[in-house]
């Protein structure tokens, strides 16, 4: 199974955007993040749970999030991700871009007024 075979309903960058948005609320660890996104989208989005991790590392690399080890409520050793200031700015930028794009597409797809 290669990258090209992954089912992509999402455009590139969508996953990162959603992660950043979720983290804006509160810092979370990987598993919780996945659960949150699934719930929030009402299961409309089929995301492979594991695909989160490469995305998280990418965000970590460009320092849009930061990570540190902590302990969960169930005494489990977990890695908690937190949004950085740069991440917040990036998120705003990406969201506005996305909304603009969405509006454009919606207009094109709108039924022609007869």
């Amino acid at each position: 199974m290669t990258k090209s075979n992954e089912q992509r309903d999402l455009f590139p960058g969508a996953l990162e955007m959603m992660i950043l948005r979720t983290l804006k609320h509160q810092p979370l660890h990987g598993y919780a993040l996945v659960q949150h996104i699934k719930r929030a989208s009402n299961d409309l989005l089929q995301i492979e749970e594991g695909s989160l991790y490469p995305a998280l590392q990418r965000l970590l690399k460009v320092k849009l999030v930061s990570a540190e080890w902590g302990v969960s409520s169930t005494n489990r050793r977990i890695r908690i991700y937190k949004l950085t200031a740069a991440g917040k700015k990036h998120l705003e930028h990406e969201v506005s871009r996305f909304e603009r794009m969405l509006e454009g597409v919606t207009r094109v797809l709108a039924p022609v007024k007869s």
Partner: protein
Amino acid sequence: MNWFTQLFCRRQRFDDISQEIREHLDEKVEELVAGGMSRTEALAAARRQFGNVTLIEERTREVWQWPLIENFFTDVRYAVRMLRKSLGFTAVAILTPALGIGANTAIFSVVNAVLLQPLSYPQPDRLVALVRHFPQGNGTSTSIPKFMVWREQKQIFQAVTAYDEAGPGMNLAGVDIPEQVKGIHASADYFTVFDAPFAAGRAYSPDEDRPGGPRVAVISYGLWHGHFGGDPAIVGKTIDLTGDPYEIIGVLGPTFKTDLPLDVWLPLQADPNSTDQGHYLVCAARMRPGVTLAQAQAAMKVSAEEFRRKYPGPSMDANETATAVPFLDLSVSDVRPALFILLGAVAFVLLIACANVANLLLARATLRKREIAIRSALGAGRRRIIYQLLTESVLLSLVGGALGLALGYAGVRPLLAVNPVAIPRVGDHGSAIALDWRVLAFTLVVALFTGILFGLIPAFSGSRTDLSTTLKEGGSRTGSGFRHNKARSILVVSEMALALILLVGAALLIRTFETMRSEKAGFDAHNVLTMEMSLSGTRFAKTAGVAQAVREVERRVDALPGAEAVASTCCLPASGLDIDLPFTIEGQAHAAGANDGDEEWRNVSTQYFQVFRIPLIRGRVFTEDDDAASSERVVVISESMAKKYWPNGNALGAGITIGHNVGPEFQEPPRQIVGIVGDARDAGLDSDPVPMMHVPEAQVADGITALETRVLPINWAIRTKTAPLSLSADIQKELRVATGGLPVAHIRTMQQVIGESTAIRDFGTTLLTAFAGVALLLATIGIYGLMACSVQQRTQEIGIRMALGARPEDVRKLVVFQGMRLAVIGVVIGVGAALGLTRFMASLIYGVKTWDRTVFVSVVALLGAVCWFASYVPARRASRVDPMDSLRYE
């Protein structure tokens, strides 16, 4: 410090990632178990929902890596591991390309030394040789008048010089035993043209280079140190050279090296108004900066026309003009075609070696199908797998290349020792052949190319796997094994075609060799010893002196018990050295200045025909009476000359005047033809016999003697009763005494002389035969391997056939038929290609057509027989299969 912490950090990071993912899965499992699933189900479900865990972990890591480089190193490590596992395979897969690459390196290093390395003079690309140009080729020798006209092209050439093409060797006296040194007469501009550095003193000036100018000399660094012990007072010292005193005015620097090693340079002192038509000089020039070769060639054409205007008449042929060629061509143009053919041949050998290794890899790929299928199932893309397989093959070929480089370098010198005289510019025993950057770069490129070439097909076909079938099946007996066999068959067929081409080439050369050996050379070269001597000094200024010395030599040497006959001549048979002169036939009307012919001419002593056992056909040979005192001038001509000019057969008794219109030195009264002798292949064994005139030494015109003494050594030839070299010391002693102490040089047997004339072709023949043999061996191994593998793969099928009633002979026939079918295809392709390619060898072949029937038939028969044998051995093994065993065999 940075990379270390980075490395350490990376380790840490990767551990973090692993742990994180594990935790994720654990958490998931806990959740599912809490929801009611059994533990085992939960584990499976968690992993499924996560996705491909291994792949995701790898992708996550990749964020922090440079995938290309990481992959490369991983591939290399993996390749090394795989290759270490199967040492036998690895050994063969390294040795085979090593041999191919080594041969290529060896030949290329020779080509590099001969053709690619720039000349050792400063700015060698500006140096050109000015030559006479004819429709059929160039003539490198030129005459004084031509030089004088050519050097007027001052806008094109910075400096033009002319110097002796050969030299008689100069006798350097003044120490205990006179020594013969290599010296030439060169015009003053020589040192400007070659930009020669001086260690001491100076060059001679144009003023000193005029007729009647002072006797000055420039010597080489080697001579200064070797002969004069590096005497610091060398400049101004007088030495006895060729019997006259010369003042040393300059010593060249140690870096100055000429193609043929020279020790002494004397001023040419040519008369600008000379009408001497002898062509015994070489003309070289340095082009002005910015001048192109094309411009120089155009200027030379103009110059040629100017010469024709200035000297109308026979001094220039009607179809003769002049041109400029790169100076390097003078030494290498003969050997260039042979070298290119060898390069082509050795490339073929490499291709065959590649095909063999490709076959090996394909066979191995069949065995590794499971491994590759598993990797594929784990997420490796096809491209990744191809890269990994290619890495393996390139690694093999690089190691093979390193080994080949060592083999090639070590092998070149013994290779050259086979025929040391053949190749110019390689130095004594190949000392000038070095591992310079060109050779290294060549080897590296060839190794890479080889690895990719033989790795490509196995990589492509090995990476194409049908996952489910491969993983389900236990063995590797069907499926892509079939596809592999097709690729392998194609490889084997091409191997055979290539081997056939090489065999045809080698066979053509061998036949040429045989033809030349068996065709009568026209003279007997066994038991003949030859020596050169430079007749310098006033004693030999005129013919009488030379003739007297010859008589004295005859008297003394004939008295030796081991000697049968002794003769002198200006040019030995088959030595490639010749003088040609025009002549007119008496009794025929001519326009003023027109000649009847221009043929080879040599002066010989009376016993010449006896020494070389050249048969007398009609009339007589020379006797003691044919000397200067006799009133009759005589000449003996060769059979082909008689046939050419007197087709009705009445040459005997006819009169010819030789040297008419050539110049006052050559004037002589008409000669009568007193004898016709058989043709001796005087221009070298590889050409048709040339018409020849022989005149007795004692009757040579004084002018010719003077010219010859200056330009050529005299050759002594002695027929001995036993081994020639055993008598060498005695003969040398007699010669020295008879000539008043002149030293002798260049002692060779006649066999050696002949060997030198065919040296290049012999060298090529030896090598090409060796390559063809290697190619045949590799192709045989290839076909044997394919058949053996195929038999093994089909063991079950054979068992079934035999159980169903096939007899052992039937099985044998089946296998042999398979093999021979491939052979036939290969032969057909090979013959077609060979017919097209052998025309490039035309210059090396003699007496045989490039499409010679015997050669092709015998080569095809040889290849067919070899293939039959290579198929028969596995066939026998196949026929011994016990049906019971094979059906049980998994």
